[in-house]
């Protein structure tokens, strides 16, 4: 602090306790993916206020203007290499509408199947590799006294690493707290599954590559459908690989999440850690039939959740606007994404992020698995809520596991449909009639990506891109305050989170990670009494 590292010191007034609080200096901290930073103010052992900011931008949307519209699906896939290809699909769907293309059922089935593979990989890597360590004390493994050969091998591995005194990059870590699972039998099983999951989700990616060509970034999704004409061997291969995924999801992932969630983590579930605004949005996705009458994930909006009687309203995408009051873009009133722009203003006063603030009907929303499962009124999620769990971090993890099973089951149905389609004369995967860009047009493409509601909007003029905007799940969840000073969902969900020890903000980390942030985050903890800045990171 105060050295050359303060090159980009931000000064901001924090409103708190009804009066303007002191001016504070935030030392930039991000050590890991420097894309998302979270600042929280802690008072009396609880989070009093929070700020979420993204600190990296490339300007993809601005760059796309003037390009051939078909470039968009390839280029936007590179928004993110972790949740790869979700943008490729949303973009292709926006182009479908703008070009007037009708994707054949065969093309949609293959799109669904490769995205199904992406889902399984993405949810598994999130739970095991990114989140699980927040809830278990790995060192408890040393106390494992069982005789299971596989588990003893896990014990040897961890103890072996410790003995070499070179445990990078596994150390250091947050100290376990009262909610941390310390039972050696449970912990060692979780760590074994952590190691197993590495292999399983790599195989899920290989499964998607059967038609996607390779991962990350599939190569087969284009406007009008897909490029991968399937053969029967591929269908069989996909099904065989899917069996392995289904086994792991049903026999390991779901039991793990439920036994942790309803067992040692039940107090966190009851407390509702990480709740937020309780507004949820799902665009709906994944057709069960050619007409798209039924969806695996239904569309809907829930405002101010009332668990006793969930009221789901239909989605009207015209109600989406984006505010840039606190973002590093040229000042603009909240507008619909069709009219959005990406003109940077890096000197803007009060701005603290590259993330815009999307709102639905002027309300901050949560998107993602919890939103989807609440909109769907899934009995397993409602069952947890009925038993006293408040929607928050723990229920979010449960919703993610439950929907993984829905997707796996759907993949089997899609494979059956695909086989039937393939044997029909005139089987199609692509609308070749509408391959060339129209003179002008506009289109919107929606996708329920693993992290939530995703939308792409395109305008075409003279066969070139005239405007392009994407509102991604992490934009909804990680958004800053809007023009009415309403916090984004990450920010709101942190309010009240217990942080008894500012040196060990494990609950803050648990909340943020439960959303599956696409990016790494940095957390600053500010003690308003001492003005001391503590620096923390979420990997």
């Amino acid at each position, binding site marked *: 602090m105060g050295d050359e590292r*303060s*090159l*980009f010191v931000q000064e901001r007034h924090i409103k708190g306790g009804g009066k303007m609080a002191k001016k504070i200096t935030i030392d930039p*901290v*991000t*050590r*890991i993916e*420097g894309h998302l930073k979270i600042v929280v103010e802690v008072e009396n052992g609880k989070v009093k206020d929070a700020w979420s900011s993204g*600190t990296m*931008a*490339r*300007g993809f949307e*601005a*760059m796309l203007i003037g*390009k*051939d519209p078909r*470039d968009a699906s*390839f280029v936007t896939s*590179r*928004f*993110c*290499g*972790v949740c*790869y290809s979700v943008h490729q699909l949303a973009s292709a769907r926006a182009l479908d509408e703008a070009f007037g293309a009708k994707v054949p059922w065969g093309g949609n089935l293959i799109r669904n199947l490769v995205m199904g593979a992406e889902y399984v990989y993405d949810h598994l890597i999130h739970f095991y590799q990114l989140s699980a360590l927040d809830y278990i004390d790995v060192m408890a493994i040393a106390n494992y006294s069982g005789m299971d050969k596989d588990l003893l091998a896990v014990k040897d*591995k961890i103890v072996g*690493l410790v*003995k*070499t005194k*070179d445990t*990078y*990059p*596994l150390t*250091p870590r*947050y100290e376990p707290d009262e909610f941390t699972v310390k039972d050696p039998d449970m912990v060692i099983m979780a760590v074994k599954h952590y190691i197993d999951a590495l*292999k399983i989700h*790599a195989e899920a990616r*290989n499964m998607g*590559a*059967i*038609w*996607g*060509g*390779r*991962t*990350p*970034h599939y190569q*087969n999704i284009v406007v009008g459908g897909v*490029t*991968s004409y399937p053969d029967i061997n591929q269908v069989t291969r996909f099904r065989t690989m899917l069996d392995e995924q289904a086994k792991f999801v049903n026999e390991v992932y779901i039991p793990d999440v439920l036994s942790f969630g309803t067992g040692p983590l039940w107090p966190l579930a009851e407390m509702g850690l990480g709740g937020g605004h309780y507004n949820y949005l799902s665009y709906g996705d994944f057709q069960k039939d050619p007409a798209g009458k039924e969806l695996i994930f239904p569309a809907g909006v829930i405002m101010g959740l009332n668990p006793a009687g969930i009221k789901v309203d239909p989605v009207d995408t015209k109600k989406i606007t984006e505010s840039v009051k606190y973002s590093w873009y040229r000042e603009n009133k909240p507008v619909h994404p069709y009219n959005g722009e990406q003109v940077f203003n*890096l000197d803007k006063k009060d701005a603290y992020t590259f993330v815009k603030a999307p709102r639905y009907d002027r309300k901050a929303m949560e998107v993602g698995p919890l939103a989807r499962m609440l909109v769907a009124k899934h009995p397993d999620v409602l069952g947890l809520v009925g038993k006293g769990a408040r929607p928050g971090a723990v229920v979010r993890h449960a919703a993610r596991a439950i929907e993984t099973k829905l997707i796996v089951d759907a993949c089997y149905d899609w494979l059956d449909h695909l086989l039937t389609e393939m044997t029909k004369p005139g089987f*199609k995967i*692509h609308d*070749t009639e509408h391959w060339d860009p129209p003179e002008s047009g506009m289109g919107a493409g929606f996708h329920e990506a693993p992290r939530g509601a995703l939308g792409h909007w395109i305008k075409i003029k003279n066969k070139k891109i005239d405007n392009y905007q994407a509102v991604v799940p992490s934009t909804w969840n990680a958004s800053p305050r809007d023009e009415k000073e309403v916090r984004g969902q990450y920010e709101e969900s942190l309010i009240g989170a217990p942080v008894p020890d500012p040196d060990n903000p494990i609950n803050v*980390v648990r909340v943020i990670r439960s959303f599956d942030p696409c*990016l*790494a985050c940095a957390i600053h903890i500010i003690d308003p009494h001492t003005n001391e800045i503590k*620096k*923390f*990171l*979420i990997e």
Partner: protein
Amino acid sequence: MSTRQKENFVDKKFLEAVKSRGINRRDFLKYCAVTATVLGLSELEFTKKVAQAIDAASKKPPVMWIEGQACAGCTVSLTQNLNPPAASIILDQISIRYHHTVMASAGDIAERVYHDTVKQGGYMLLVEGAVPSADDRFCIEGGIPFRKRLEESAKNAAVIIAVGACSTYGGIPRATPSKGIPVSEALKRAGINKTVVNISTCPVHPDHLIGTILYVLVTGKAPELDVKGRPAMYFGDKLMHDNCRRRAHFDVGEFLKDWNDPKQKDWCLFEKGCKGPVSYIDCAIRRWNDGISFCLDCGGLCQACGEPNFYDKVTPLYTAESETSKKIWAMREACLFKKDT
């Protein structure tokens, strides 16, 4: 040679030493197989050489991975390696001191480790992502511009490896308002005269990356590079076009027009925008995802993502109207491509 035979051959004492450092023997041997051919050695010789190299070093070699304007796709690509498993590389073979998505938490300590490692020097520096040249503020990491972090960590690095299209040649960020530039260019501008090993493609191929890391580990130096600064063993003169199974159709002028037509399924994708004829890379032989497929096998196109021209010179991607496509057609007309033999 079976794994069992290999185990017998390699000094038991050494393998015990390996095991004591938490390395699974089987993984270690599989690992060696990956790059044996690369060094022109038999698998056996290579196994011995790696064994000696690791044994000679009293510690696992320190590695730092920094990320600028990137999508983390190269990191994800690395973790999908099954043989050897990514976990065995990350935990057993190298000592990752710094990596956003891999390292455990704690900012202050991570920062100290970073500075200690820079001070100590002699590490392998892996860089994912471009460096914004329009304004430092487009990529701030740890509160300092990514450019600055790159410069300070490059100075004391033993080897610098640029990972993926963005860090090697600028890739897509080069075409954006942030004006991303490659690692080599950023270092040149800062007056740092060091060799950068470019492992291009979007994202990086895990074999290319792991193979290069192993090469450095065993030989202590960078592999031979082609004229574009890439490991010659994977790029160089390995023209995609010469190994493409659609090649014969290019020569006779059979170009795919309709992805729905099974008859055209294997025809040349040039008219759809394929840039394979100017793409020097071994994808058509090596393939992706454990050999399951690759871009051209799913009816997708090669966009020459390993070439310095990617992306601004290969757009529009899905027609034959780009600068690059026009060049390919002119070369075809002038009979400049090797004939299929």
